[in-house]
């Protein structure tokens, strides 16, 4: 397994490099360093000298990929791409364009993002799997029919509607929790309840339908019939056998998401005023802060790769037949 892991990690390097190059190219196709300088320096009284000074101070006065004026390895190293991207592989994300340390920002924002994303994920998974198993149990009955109708209706509604509707009903009309905001420590719970509840409810429709499909496929298998023939209760059949055998497709969709929970949610964080990484990314895009965008894309890629590796590893736990060679 170790060899497998090393191999996967080595594969990751060219992928990350590729992601970096693409991000870099895309960003600078639409944004020149002059544009970035203007964005940072504001609208009023910005002189060409100020723009040049800003670029020089941050190293944006160099060529993008190849420095023809340099010699030796400096042809590649004395460029914006190398100076801005190479250090990320060593975990140094540098400073945002406004001068603030990106690693510190990420560290401080990770907590709020996880405070929302993790419970939403765990509770959501429990609720949707349970609901899907219930629909599977009552398959072809009126409960199943109306359950699926409900799921289709729920997945047809925009996520934004859940957020605004939830805020309107639970916070504005019923005054049960704050409408938005975030507090550290013990105060965090009252800000977390509503986004988590909305996150869980908005995910029920699509996830339940997906899991139900998987369970229905499993429930007609021979081993299920055998389990029933042994006299096991239907619940035992569902939870001990069907669920366990349906784990591979479930894990494929679920484990890969776990590392990405760190990245937060763009929409939820924005509407609930959660100072997480999702809103950090959105702010950076709006402010054309390449340093932050680059760092977030890089971290997202790393986490996605980690998620894929974890997914592969998780298969060995649920299916002993799978071995890595």
């Amino acid at each position, binding site marked *: 397994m170790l060899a497998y892991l090393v191999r996967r990690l080595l594969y990751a390097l060219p992928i990350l490099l590729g992601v970096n190059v693409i991000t870099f190219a895309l960003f600078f196709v639409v944004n020149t360093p002059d544009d970035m300088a203007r964005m940072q320096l504001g609208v009023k009284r910005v002189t060409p000298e100020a723009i040049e000074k800003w670029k020089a101070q941050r190293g944006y006065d160099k060529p993008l990929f190849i420095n023809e004026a340099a010699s030796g390895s400096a042809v590649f190293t004395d460029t914006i791409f190398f100076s801005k991207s190479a250090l990320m592989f060593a975990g140094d994300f540098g400073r945002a364009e406004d001068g603030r*340390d990106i690693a*510190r920002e990420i560290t401080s924002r990770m907590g709020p993002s996880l405070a929302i994303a993790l419970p939403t994920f765990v509770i959501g998974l429990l609720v949707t799997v349970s609901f899907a198993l219930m629909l599977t149990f009552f398959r072809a009955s009126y409960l199943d029919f109306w359950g699926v109708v409900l799921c289709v209706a729920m997945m047809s509604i925009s996520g934004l509607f859940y957020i605004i509707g939830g805020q309107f009903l639970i916070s504005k009309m019923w005054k049960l929790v704050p409408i938005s905001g975030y507090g550290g420590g013990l105060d965090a719970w009252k800000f977390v309840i509503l986004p988590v509840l909305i996150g869980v409810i908005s995910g029920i429709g699509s996830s339940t339908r997906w899991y139900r499909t998987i369970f229905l496929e499993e429930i007609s298998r021979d081993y299920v019939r055998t389990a029933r023939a042994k006299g096991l*209760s239907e619940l035992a059949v569902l939870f001990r056998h069907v669920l366990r055998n349906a784990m591979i497709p479930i894990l494929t969709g679920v484990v890969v998401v776990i590392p990405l929970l760190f990245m937060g949610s763009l929409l939820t964080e924005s509407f609930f005023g959660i100072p997480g990484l999702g809103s950090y990314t959105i702010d950076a895009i709006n402010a054309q802060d390449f340093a932050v965008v680059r760092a977030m894309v890089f971290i997202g890629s790393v986490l996605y790769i980690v998620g894929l590796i974890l997914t592969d590893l998780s298969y060995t736990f649920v299916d002993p037949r799978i071995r890595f060679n």
Partner: protein
Amino acid sequence: MPALRLAVRRLLQPVLLLLSLLFLLAACSSEQNDPYPQAERGKNILYAAFTDRPKHLDPVQSYSEDEITFTAQIYEPPLQYHYLKRPYTLIPATSEEVPVARYYDARGDELPADAPVAEIARSVYDIRIRPGIRYQPHPAFATDAAGQPVYRDLDAEKLRGIDQIADFPDAGTRELVADDYIYQIKRLAHPRLHSPIFSMMSERIIGLGELGETLREAAKEMPSDAWLDLDRFPLAGVTRVDRYTYRIELHGKYPQFPYWLAMPFFAPVPREVDRFYSMPGMAEKNLTLDWYPVGTGPFMLTRNDPNSRMVLERNPNFHGETYPCVGEPGDEAAGLLADCGKPLPFIDKAVFSREKEAIPYWNKFLQGYYDASGISSDSFDQAVRLGVGGDVSLTDEMRAKGIHLLTSVRPSVFYMGFNMLDPVVGGLSEQAIKLRQALSIAVDQEEFISIFMNGRGIAATSPLPPGIFGYLDGEDGNNPVVYDWVDGRPQRKAIEVARKLLAEAGWPNGRNATTGEPLVVNLDTTSGGMGEKSRLDWLTRQFAKLDIQLVVRSTDFNRFQEKLRKGAVQLYYLGWNADYPDPENFLFLLDGTDGKVAVGGENASNYANPAYDRLFERMKNMESDGPRGAERLAIIREAIALLQHDAPWIYGFHPKSYTLGHSWLHNRKSTDVGNNILKYQRIDVARRARLRQEWNEPVLWPLLVALLLLVAVILPAAIGYRRRERGTAR
């Protein structure tokens, strides 16, 4: 059966737990939706919101509205605006008095105050600050028994465990001295800082440009993060007279300079603070002046988390200031003089929470968790009622809550500018002028304000907004090119007049009189979203009234700016907010010597009319008050008449700001120029607590309904399960 029980328990447990928790919380007390810690209840704290995170809190760089909300409460430049008087009046902040310029000729002889501008080689301002003003407590001022700074040789290792300013165990203070102001003015030229006014000020302050060059050279010799001690570099035009007095010398005459002395750019920054923040390892922890400002103002920033919350607390060393006892007529009746002579500030703390979205912001205001709020377009109808005559009043819902409304016309102008270098719409030929006049008539600004701004603006007749010297109301201020004066009111000229002008311009019915080609005008703008689209559709219809085709070229802000710089636009949409309340700050936008294409200036229309330039040159060097005020006014009127005739802009509107305040918030007056307003605000804490409780009683029955619904779903499932388990095989 055990399996059933297990299943039901598994299904119900998390839900019941959650609901029980909610019940428990709701039952604990009212105001479950209070977003603030319980410990803050009943405290003298003002609650407000901000939308965009401030980028800079260093006074040398900070220039935007989002930032000045904070910096103006912390830093104290020598001057400030009187809170109540209108027109805006400069008064001392830390200075003894508002400085008066002395003028000198090239030989160094002093000239009288009314000397001709051509003879004035230097203006000299002596600014004397009041002794005894002290800085907020800060570790940069902490000294040991020998009087040496406690934190003088920090590095990354010694900073272990320190993540914010409050983590430093020692703090100190010291008296404000003239050297601190001098140090900050030198910082305008700092090569590693980007002061937006450096370029402009280096043309005014003697020696500032040269200092910039010297500092740049000096910085090259040093490591990029080494401290640049500005005391080592003299600045010819800014000198220390004594411990409390400093002198600023300017090239020529610049009567608008005192306005700059009311901005944070000219606030004091002590040398030891600059040195403190320059130590190794500080910037990596965001311990910078840009993040933790240091000042003498009424408040100090104790928490800077621009992602969620920023907190200003009363500066225990604030030098003391009292609430004003005079204002403009009507202030006394409005209760704005009730706190006359009382010490400032009134509040102990101000908590600013970040609200990116308008809906949560508005609802929190209605729940009493923000003390004041603006009105977004979405909430406008809920908050404000517009009468038939355009009169504005609050809705019954707002009145029932005791909310009060403040309105004011902002010192801003929005306009569509013609590129005067364009061969079709530009130039000063009679035909081009008539074409622009025709378009000025066709675009119905009153309709725009009514449809898209809920009436929150007034149509502009010149670049000058109300409240600025030179703005004229009534018939005197009418733009005769666009409006007729009928029955004591301006009436937009009929579209036929515009058509006639268009024909005289060589474009009858929107077609070239010679070639028959249709007239196509390109509008460059920054836009996006549905709202913008509907505006642009409306604008297209305005041009279509004259059979002119409008092509909208929407682009991002940077592309737009680039096009302006290159003169690659025909018609563009822009706005301008005043830096200071002087007509020069608006009329310079059309100064021919400051053309965007020629010199990268602020005259984006590249308008160059020598007659206007002469008038502007005379006007900008005059004071509005004093014996030459009337002369200045006459020059402004002449200049505006020229602008109205030449029509380099389609004058748009001056926006009105509408803000709402709760009944417990006192001493609020609209001010769009002075920003250090927090110290004047007073809160009736008991009333706020009572009303908040009244408005935020939790509603519990939905929880019960949710529980019943859950049971209604689970119970049939459980019964169905039991029936199946007990049923015979089929």
